[in-house]
C-alpha cells in the first residue's frame, strides 16, 4: 500500500467512524502534508490507517449520527426446528430505520435460517415478524441467473417494481459503481468471478430501494477494497434511513453496527453491541 492508498483508506475509515466531514478532510490533508514534507512510509510514521483513525476518533470525537427512526423490523420469539434439532429458540430482534444490526454466531447456529424467516422465505415453528415498508434480501450465494447479463438482472428486478428498463439499468449500474464495479459489460453472470457475482447479488437487493435490507454474508469473495466499499455503502444506506440486518462472522466489524443478535446457543436473546461507536447510542 503506497501513501495515496494509505490516505484513501484513512479517509474511508474516518467516514465510516462518522468523523465530521470537515474534520476528516482536515486530518487527511494534514497527514498528506506531513508525508509530503517529511517523507517516510505512512505505516511507519502513523501506523495502520485503521489504528490511526481510531486514535483520531478518540481525540476529536465523532459527528452525532441521525436519531434512529421508527421500528422497521421486529422479529419476536422466533423458534425453528429441523426434526428434533432446534436451530433457533426464541430469537428476538428489533431494527429501526437508520440502524445496522449484525446477526452473529457459530456455524450452523441458524443465522441464515433467521434471515430467511425474516424475509418470509421459510416459516418458523413459533414467533412472528413485522416489517414496515419494502423488503430487500441478498442470499449468501445463488439468486442470480447464470445466462443473463448484469443489465438484464437489473431490468428483471426493476420490472417487479414497475421501473422502466432504462432507469432500472442506470440505477443498477450506479449501485454497482458504489461497490467499485462497472456493471455495464457484455458478460453473462456465469462468467463473473465469485466476488463480482456477489456484487451483482448485492446490487439486486438494493435496487428496489428497500426500507428493510437483509444481507446474508454478502461479502464472500470480496477483496479488501470492495469490502471497504461494501461497508461504506451500508453506511450510506443507513444514513438514508434504511434498516439493515447483516449476517456476519467477522467480529471486527461489530463496532460499525448498532445492534447485535448473537445466536450462539445459550446467548440467544438480542443484545446491544458491546462497543457501539460512531455516535449511535
Amino acid at each position, binding site marked *: 500500500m503506497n501513501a495515496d492508498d494509505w490516505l484513501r483508506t484513512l479517509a474511508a475509515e474516518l467516514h465510516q467512524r462518522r468523523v465530521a466531514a470537515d474534520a476528516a478532510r482536515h486530518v487527511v490533508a494534514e497527514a498528506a502534508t506531513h508525508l509530503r514534507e517529511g517523507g517516510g512510509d505512512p505505516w511507519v510514521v502513523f501506523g495502520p490507517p485503521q489504528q490511526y483513525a481510531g486514535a483520531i476518533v478518540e481525540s476529536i470525537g465523532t459527528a452525532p449520527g441521525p436519531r434512529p427512526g*421508527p421500528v422497521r423490523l421486529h422479529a419476536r420469539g422466533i423458534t425453528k426446528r429441523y426434526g428434533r434439532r432446534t436451530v433457533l429458540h426464541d430469537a428476538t430482534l428489533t431494527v429501526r430505520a437508520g440502524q445496522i444490526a449484525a446477526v452473529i454466531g457459530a456455524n450452523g447456529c441458524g443465522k441464515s435460517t433467521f434471515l430467511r*424467516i*425474516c*424475509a*418470509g*422465505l*421459510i*416459516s*418458523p415453528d413459533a*414467533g*412472528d*415478524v*413485522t*416489517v*414496515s*415498508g419494502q*423488503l*430487500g*434480501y441478498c*442470499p449468501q450465494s*445463488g*439468486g*442470480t*441467473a*447464470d*445466462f*443473463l447479463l448484469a443489465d*438484464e438482472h437489473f*431490468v*428483471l*428486478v426493476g*420490472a*417487479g*417494481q*414497475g421501473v422502466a428498463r432504462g432507469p432500472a439499468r442506470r440505477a443498477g449500474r450506479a449501485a454497482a459503481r458504489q461497490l467499485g464495479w462497472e456493471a455495464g459489460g457484455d458478460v*453473462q453472470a456465469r462468467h463473473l468471478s465469485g466476488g463480482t457475482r456477489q456484487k451483482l447479488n448485492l446490487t*439486486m*437487493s438494493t*435496487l*428496489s430501494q428497500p*426500507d428493510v435490507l437483509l444481507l446474508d454474508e454478502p461479502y464472500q469473495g470480496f477483496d479488501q477494497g470492495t469490502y471497504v466499499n461494501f461497508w461504506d455503502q451500508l453506511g450510506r444506506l443507513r444514513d438514508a434511513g434504511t434498516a439493515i440486518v447483516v449476517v456476519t462472522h467477522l467480529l471486527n466489524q461489530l463496532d460499525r453496527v448498532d445492534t447485535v443478535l448473537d445466536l450462539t446457543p445459550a446467548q440467544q436473546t438480542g443484545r446491544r453491541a458491546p462497543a457501539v461507536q460512531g455516535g449511535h447510542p
Partner: protein
Amino acid sequence: MNRLVTVAEMTLRELLRRRGVLLLLLLMPLTFYLIRRDAYLGQSVRSLLLGVGWAVSTAALFATTAARELEPRLRLAGYRPHHLYLGRMLGLWMVGLVISVPFFLLPMVDGADLRYGGLAAALLCSVGVAAPFGMLIGALLPRELEGTLLLLTVVTVQMLIDPAGSGAKLTPFWSTREIATWAVDHTDQGYLARGVLHGLAVTALLALGVAAVANVRLRRRRHLRHLPVG
C-alpha cells in the same frame, strides 16, 4: 403485463444463450425422425412429435430448476407468483414454437403425403403440453437428475403403450399421437377432435398444477406481517 413479458423475455434469452442445449433440442426430434425413416412414415412423424415434446419438457424442467433460487427474491422485488410461472411458460412456449418450425418443414422437404394443418396442430399440442409438463416436474422435484429420470420414464411409457388402450389417455402426449394419426393416415375427424380436446385439457390441468405448486412455494407466510411505512 410488463412483469409477465419481462419474465418471458428473460426465459427466452437464457435458453437462446444455451447453444449446446439448443443443439440438443434440435437433435433429439431429428434423431427420432431419422431412426424410424426407413419404416412406416406415420411412425416416423409420431416419433418426431414425441421428440419435440420430450425436448421442450426437458428444457422446461431445467429452466424451472435453474430459477428456483431466483424466484423467491423476485417475489420480494414485487412479482406475484403468476407473473413468474406464466412468464416462464410463455417463454418456453415461444422457444418450443421456434424449434418446431424446422420440424414442420422436415417432412415437407422429405416429400411426405400429410395433412400439414394436422402436423402443425400436433406440433402446437406437443409444445403446449410439454412446457407445463416439464415445469410441473421441475417444481415438484428439486433435483434435475430425478426430474430427468421421471421424464424419461413418462416418455418411454408413451412410446411403448398401446394407444388404443384406455391407459394411454392418461399419458400427457396422447393428444399429439391422435392428431398425428389424423394427419398421417388421413383418418376421420374424430381423431383430430379427440386430440385437440385432450391436448387442451391436459395443458390446462398441467398449468393449474404448476400454478398450485408455485402459489404454495411462493406464498406469503403467515408469520410475516407487512405494514406500510409510517
